[in-house]
């Protein structure tokens, strides 16, 4: 069947519907490397503008680090552009194996299996290690890629209220007749920036004989004293069984993901995980860049320490200005606005002030939880933070929301 006018009208109507509802995701074109300060064309065709970036996952400021870029260049020369294949056929190079070893060491795990992305790691993992006799017991706010992975798995699904240990315990009790149980959580929840109580989760896992799986994509490299992640933060490095994470955020920001854990789990992924078996291998330049990132992070915690200092300064500045923030201890600092239009309007006004942020609203966050999610980077300097704080304060004053709490903002702008 050709692409008929009927099909064209259908898709056009769908897209127009998204625009009418205000949920159409409009791209803004960055004309520079990813960094604290970027050159952006927005809207399309407008004069490009230099703005400060407060919505990237470039937590450690390594996306354009000269040593990382150099390592990637060298790998292009020595290992080529791509493998033209999947790993198990003819797409594994020595540096892939090296990255798996270094990643296992970094996270304190026995083994690692690389994937083209963490989305694919999460899509592949559960179906490989759990069957209908088993139970997956998941926090309700886990990342969409985990939800997709759980849906692909035939194991029995239980979920518990976000970070509620009493509800988790109820679900563990319900799942006691299952053969294996796996508790599944994000380490840092990407929308709220809060950290899962892994110490308490591990206690419950011990009590009810369950494995613990953590997606630490928003933590690896910078959470915990030496940046190992939320298992280090909660002092449970030997008690978390499986960690999935990404090389696409703090660890250089290109792409790629991994499953780390007991060597049998890593090997099961290599043998059976469909995204591993049927997706092309991580490009050599990205592997070499990721290896360089791990080397940088293993030598010094300077970047992680600067990120922590920046985050503390940013959070204190926004609080002093009178914004309503989600409390937390991570570089994800959500400014709560509750009303979707308000979030969009403020994000647009901040762009005109030279600050690049995004409004989030339903269905990305729950109804009535609209916000601007700011993200801090080790690449931010004090003058960046001060300029952004001044801009936020100016725009906050314009909308009369400084010092207002949830009920007052909702009373003023509605939900």
């Amino acid at each position, binding site marked *: 069947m050709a692409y008929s006018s009927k099909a064209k009208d259908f898709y056009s109507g769908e897209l127009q519907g998204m625009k009418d509802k205000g949920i159409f995701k409009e791209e803004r074109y960055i004309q520079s490397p990813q960094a604290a300060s970027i050159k952006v064309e927005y809207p399309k065709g407008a004069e490009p503008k230099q703005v400060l970036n407060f919505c990237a996952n470039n937590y450690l400021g390594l996306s354009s680090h000269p040593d990382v870029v150099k390592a990637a260049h060298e790998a292009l020369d020595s290992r080529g552009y791509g493998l033209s294949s999947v790993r198990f056929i003819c797409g594994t190079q020595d540096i892939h194996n090296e990255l798996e070893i270094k990643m296992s060491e970094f996270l304190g795990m026995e083994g690692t299996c690389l994937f083209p992305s963490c989305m694919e790691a999460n899509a592949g993992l559960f179906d490989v290690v759990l069957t209908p006799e088993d139970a997956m017991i998941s926090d309700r706010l886990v990342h969409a890629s985990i939800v997709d992975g759980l*849906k692909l798995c035939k194991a029995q699904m239980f*979920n518990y209220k976000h970070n509620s240990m009493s509800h988790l315990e109820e679900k563990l009790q319900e799942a006691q007749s299952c053969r294996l149980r796996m508790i599944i959580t994000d380490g840092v929840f990407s929308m709220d920036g809060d950290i899962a109580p892994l110490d308490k989760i591990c206690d419950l896992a011990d009590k009810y004989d369950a494995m613990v799986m953590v997606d630490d994509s928003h933590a690896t490299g910078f959470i915990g004293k030496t940046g190992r992640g939320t298992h280090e933060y909660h002092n449970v490095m030997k008690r978390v069984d499986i960690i999935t994470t990404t090389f696409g955020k703090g660890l250089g920001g290109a792409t790629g993901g991994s499953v780390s854990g007991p060597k049998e789990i890593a090997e099961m992924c290599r043998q059976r995980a469909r995204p591993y078996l049927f997706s092309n291998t991580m490009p050599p330049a990205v592997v070499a860049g990721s290896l360089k990132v791990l080397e940088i992070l293993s030598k010094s915690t300077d970047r992680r320490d600067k990120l922590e200092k920046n985050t503390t300064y940013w959070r204190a500045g926004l609080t002093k200005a009178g914004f309503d923030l989600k409390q937390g201890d991570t570089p994800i600092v959500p400014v709560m606005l509750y009303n979707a239009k308000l979030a969009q309007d403020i994000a647009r006004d901040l762009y005109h002030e030279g600050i690049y942020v995004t409004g989030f609203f*339903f269905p990305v966050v729950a109804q009535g939880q609209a916000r601007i999610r700011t993200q801090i980077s080790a690449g931010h300097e004090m003058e960046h933070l001060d300029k952004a704080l001044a801009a936020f304060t100016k725009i906050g004053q314009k909308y009369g929301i400084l010092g207002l709490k949830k009920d007052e903002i909702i009373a003023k702008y509605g939900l």
Partner: protein
Amino acid sequence: MSDEIKKMIIEYVKKEYLDEDSDQEVKEDTKLISSGIVDSFSMVSLKTYLEKKFSIKLPDEDATPEAFDSVNNIIELIKKFGAKV
């Protein structure tokens, strides 16, 4: 009988999906999915609960967000698949 079942489902939704400190009201016509009380992920556990409670099987193609969007809709759905309500 139907009122008792409605009450039972409402209690389950409140206990299972609302925060302990939530003062949100759930009635038989409250929007569950489109209001965000029950997200698409949690629909799976709601479906499992209904299947176990009423000893029925709800086919995936019928377990749509619309069918789960209120307690009234849920009652219609489970009646269709043989629940005695």
